[in-house]
């Protein structure tokens, strides 16, 4: 127990960030499941962080309703944004969601209620490690259930081929919007928890690089199951600490090592780190086994 306390005293902040990044990676995973390349989830996280922070700082709302609002408002924003932009595909969708990120950042810099460029300060420090991991566990469970649901299979078909999916009778646009909104809400939740961990939220906290990081967590970890993005986020968030542990200085080298890992994964593990622990799909039952049954 004492060791655990000591361990947490040293690595607590890292453990918290692994949890929050994993939650953010999961949020993007829902969107990616439908083949939608969104770079908007960092902005949804910012929206959730500011919403929850403003509610506790300026309106003295209790923590739980503030966190809930931090998830719900990005969800509503995702509906408003999704209606026009989800007709776009691939790189065009990525650009449109990126532009949304800029809008959120510029709004945060210029509004009074967000604290401008200095950010929103004095946010009560209520979030703790178990809340983060409870949220992560619930989100992971939700994503796992979603995958096996009617909606999850629909999303997977949309990712495989939109025309084929439409021919199956899948309501393409409705499902895409739903996945986009769920992703935004999970991202908002992560942002809201972060705001109440860090005392402070600034317009720089969820910028372009975070948006790209979320994508990299998913690629490195693998997008096909909930544990992929969690693994990717854990590895890449812990990496600077690990490097420091073995005597490599952080900073520019970190970017290089991130890039190297990304490259190695793309080359040798196209389905990400997750493919190291799950058996390849579609061969789960051998033909012999089903032959015996017949």
């Amino acid at each position, binding site marked *: 127990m004492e060791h655990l306390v000591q361990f947490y005293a040293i690595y607590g902040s890292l453990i918290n960030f692994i949890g929050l990044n994993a939650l953010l990676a999961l949020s993007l995973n829902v969107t990616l499941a439908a083949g939608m390349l969104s770079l908007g989830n960092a902005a949804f996280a910012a929206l959730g962080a500011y919403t929850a922070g403003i509610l506790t700082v300026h309106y003295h709302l209790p923590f739980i309703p503030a966190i809930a609002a931090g998830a719900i408002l990005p969800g509503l924003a995702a509906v408003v944004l999704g209606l026009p932009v989800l007709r776009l595909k691939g790189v065009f969708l990525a650009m449109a969601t990126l532009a949304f990120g800029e809008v959120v950042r510029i709004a945060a810099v210029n509004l009074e209620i967000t604290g401008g460029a200095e950010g929103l300060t004095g946010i009560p420090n209520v979030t703790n490690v178990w809340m983060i991991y409870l949220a992560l566990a619930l989100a992971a469970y939700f994503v796992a259930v979603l995958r096996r649901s009617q909606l999850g299979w629909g999303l997977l078909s949309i990712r495989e081929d939109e025309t084929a999916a439409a021919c199956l009778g899948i309501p393409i646009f409705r499902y895409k919007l739903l996945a986009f909104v769920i992703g935004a809400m999970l991202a908002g939740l992560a942002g809201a928890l972060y705001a109440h961990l860090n005392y402070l939220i600034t317009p720089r906290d969820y910028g372009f690089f975070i948006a790209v990081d979320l994508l990299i967590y998913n690629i490195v970890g693998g997008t096909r199951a909930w544990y992929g993005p969690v693994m990717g986020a854990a590895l890449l968030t812990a990496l600077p600490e690990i490097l420091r542990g073995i005597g490599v200085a952080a900073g520019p080298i970190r970017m290089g090592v991130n890039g190297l890992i990304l490259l190695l994964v793309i080359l040798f593990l196209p389905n990400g780190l997750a493919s190291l622990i799950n058996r390849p799909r*579609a061969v789960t039952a051998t033909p012999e086994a089903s032959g015996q049954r017949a």
Partner: protein
Amino acid sequence: MLEVDGLTVCYGPIEALREISFGVTQGTVVSLVGPNGAGKTTALNAISGLLPATQGRIIFQGRDITRMSSHQRVAAGIVQVPEGRLVLAGMSVHENLELGGYCRPRKEIATGIAQMESRFPILAERRHMLAGTLSGGEQQMLAIARGLMARPKLLLLDEPSLGLAPLMVQLIFEIISELQSGGQTILLVEQNARQAMAVSSHAYVMESGRIVLHGEARQLMADPVLIDSYLGGPSERSKDKQ
């Protein structure tokens, strides 16, 4: 069963279909033939709801479905097997079939798959393989079986023989005849006009977004001059026009 009345479809400013009208009677195979770029796929996509109609009406079983979304049309019984064998390549054969029954109650799916596997034994053999690893002909069979999983009242087939080896083409047309004997209504789009007409009761010949000829397939087939002028040399004809 299906009535298309004055259907016009545009891609932006380009009119790909100009006021075409045709019909499909229950229990028959009707083919829509014509050269590449005639607008056959466009017509099918408008019927299945993948493309919006600019003008005209589509009536299915007495209901105006012109403004219905594609998933509502699947639920109503119009199922398209799209051009180019669009199987879900990263999923197994079994999963493809399961997804074919997406709009059906879950408990019916297992029996549907069993039916498809006995009708297409090769699919039972390949059950656990990824659909993308099947041969072209097998993928086409899977695409048709996946379409049938939805229990369509009207099956739309877009160029099922395209790019297949002659033996496979033969097999696909046999499957179409068999389906027709079983009472399945089919609207068949083909460039392979002779073979398409051989399995059809009626045929419509399209060119440049219009229907230029139609009638009983048997009669159209008996007129080789007609076939040659409309389907034998589409490239010469388009050159003539310029």
